[in-house]
């Protein structure tokens, strides 16, 4: 039950202004919560408590309700993306070729859980659905870099590049 997020919030005044503009635009519309949260996530990349509070106060919707919505819909995340965002495909093709083990290896090596970000903000890890690169299965991406036809022993080498 503890507050999971340990990365300090680093929102800028520009981001806040942008969010306030969005809120002002939606303020009197019914059902504004979800679109505003989408915009907020676009602006900040994720929805930490600070951002949810701004939405709650701006739209006059209780924080408990906002948080309920954010945790209900999988497209929202309360975790920031790391400097390096690792996405491992768990689509069927990748999965049968061992992407489950790959994800476990990354977890142990970096000490990061799926869906969260390392405390130093460097790495975040995501398990994605099929990304359409089945010919390369199993596949993972680190930011814009794509790595395919992986075997378990490739993983350390890949991570080393970003750990430097």
């Amino acid at each position, binding site marked *: *039950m*503890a*507050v*999971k*997020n340990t990365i300090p919030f680093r929102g800028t005044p520009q981001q806040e202004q942008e969010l306030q503009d969005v809120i002002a635009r939606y303020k009197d519309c019914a059902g504004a919560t979800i679109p505003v949260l989408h915009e907020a996530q676009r602006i900040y990349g994720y929805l930490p*408590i600070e951002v*949810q*509070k701004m939405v709650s106060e701006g739209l006059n919707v*209780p*924080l*408990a*309700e*906002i*948080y*309920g919505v954010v*945790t*209900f819909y*999988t497209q929202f995340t*309360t975790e920031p993306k790391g400097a390096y965002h690792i996405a491992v495909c768990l689509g069927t093709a990748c999965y049968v070729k061992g992407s489950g083990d790959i994800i476990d290896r990354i977890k142990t090596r970096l000490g990061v859980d799926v869906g969260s970000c390392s405390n130093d903000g460097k790495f975040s890890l995501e398990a994605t659905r099929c990304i359409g690169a089945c010919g390369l299965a199993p596949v993972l991406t680190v930011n814009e870099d794509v790595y395919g036809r992986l075997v378990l022993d490739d993983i350390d080498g890949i991570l080393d590049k970003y750990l430097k």
Partner: protein
Amino acid sequence: MAVNLKINNMDVTVPEGTTILEAARSINVDIPTLCYLKEINEIGSCRMCVVEIKGARALQASCVYPVAEGMEVFTNTKAVRDSRKVTLELILSNHDRKCLTCVRNQNCELQKMSTDLGVDDIRFLGENPYYDVDNLSPSIVRDPNKCILCRRCVSVCKNVQTVSVIDAVERGINTIVGSPFGVSLSETPCVNCGQCIVVCPVGALREKDDTDRVWEAIADPAKHVIVQTAPAVRIALGEEFGMPIGTRVTGKMVSALKLMGFDGVFDTDTAADFTIMEEGTEFLQRLEKGGKLPLITSCSPGWVKFCEHNFPDFLDNLSSAKSPHEMFGAITKSYYAEKQGIDPASIYVVSVMPCTAKKFEAAREELSGTGYPDVDAVITTRELGRMIKQSGIEFTKLEDGQFDTPFGAASGAGVIFGATGGVMEAALRTVADILTGQDLQAIDYEAVRGIEGIKEATLEIAGKKVRVAVASGLGNARKLLESIRSGEKEYEFIEIMGCPGGCVAGGGQPIVDAKTQMEINVRAARASAIYAEDKAMTFRKSHKNPIVSKIYQEYLGEPCGHLSHKLLHTHYMQRANY
């Protein structure tokens, strides 16, 4: 328009808009329910109440399904029974089924249903992640492991109280009811009203138990332990012992407290008379000297905290008078200590309250005018019931006892504090006498009685127009204050109680199950017991209570005077949300 239908082949006629559940119960056909709570939670989510409707494809949830002309309903077919049983077994499969050590043992809607439906085995193995129990709040304990996700608490907190600090979070198998970001209730704007507890069908919400602290104090020979009981306790405590709702058990309660070993058994009603003297005087001063109006009562700690979070612009309107039990504590640790020659440090004041928010209130640092906390422990009506049972006292067989002196004699005005409108009426009885200089005989202010959420009246007192309003339940308080903020309404005097119906329906009162709540208007039944107590009193106005005049003469001086201010008044602060 009337609608005719058949339930289990019996004819029934009910008004249009009635649900199948209500129609069935009107002819004594019982249908089990779990998430449904009349007027509070009608969301049709648990599916315990399913019935067969002729011509319908699937079983339907009767608690939300309106009746229709010519409808044929069956509540007791094999398909219905099987479906309910599977639903219940699924709920039980991931329920922390430790009934023997559960606060709701024998008073639990889930447990009763399990017996009623004849569940003797649970065929499913549920996944049972363990969730931490939130016990950091001074008033409310939440145990998600016992939660069946009925959402009654969410509805009462959001729709009735408009506090909204709990909601369903996450999805699917991981769904729990909790506060945002998993923080403790104590870190939210929760006002500790306990309305979530009294609507919870199971043991997932309970009061923070302070009975051990009280037992320890009683066992400590160095402590002089005195107990005071709020007006609404005496008309509800009997329910803990199976007595009908609305039974007055004042005398038995006093006898039980004496048997339990308290050194003094006193009446918070006496202190309520002091509250009226202080608050009434404050009102007259503001009225005559042009002070901030409307004056708003401050004896409901749930309301006070709500105001601190949500209406900081009204904090100067709040009466600075402490709530009655805090006044009692302050007078006990000053006047009484001096009179009896007892060191105030050794006095331990226990308050028995219908209220969970009083636990939070007692812990406020500013409530210690004597240098000691005014009140040392607060227990609810339910906790007192448990302590009496632990003592092996046969409550229903007790003779009537008498409160001890000096704080045993109270006026009827002090008694009616327990019902919505009561503080207002009590204050008016005194204010009207002072303004007219007479001993008025017409003192039943019917306009402010009754269980409506918001009541208004305009009174003529000694040629002065006094516009009053009474709100109970925080959603109603919010509505009332917003109408004042916007300039739409103006008043001179307002009473606000945090719980709908006032203290009689407080968050610390005996829990009444959903089915009984459909049959009996609990608030009204308890309130009429309160007004019966009032009628039975010798003195019905606070300023006529001889104890009150005596203590002002001997000790306090004038109401709102120097010493009164030190002992009997307090202040408030704006509080952040999260």
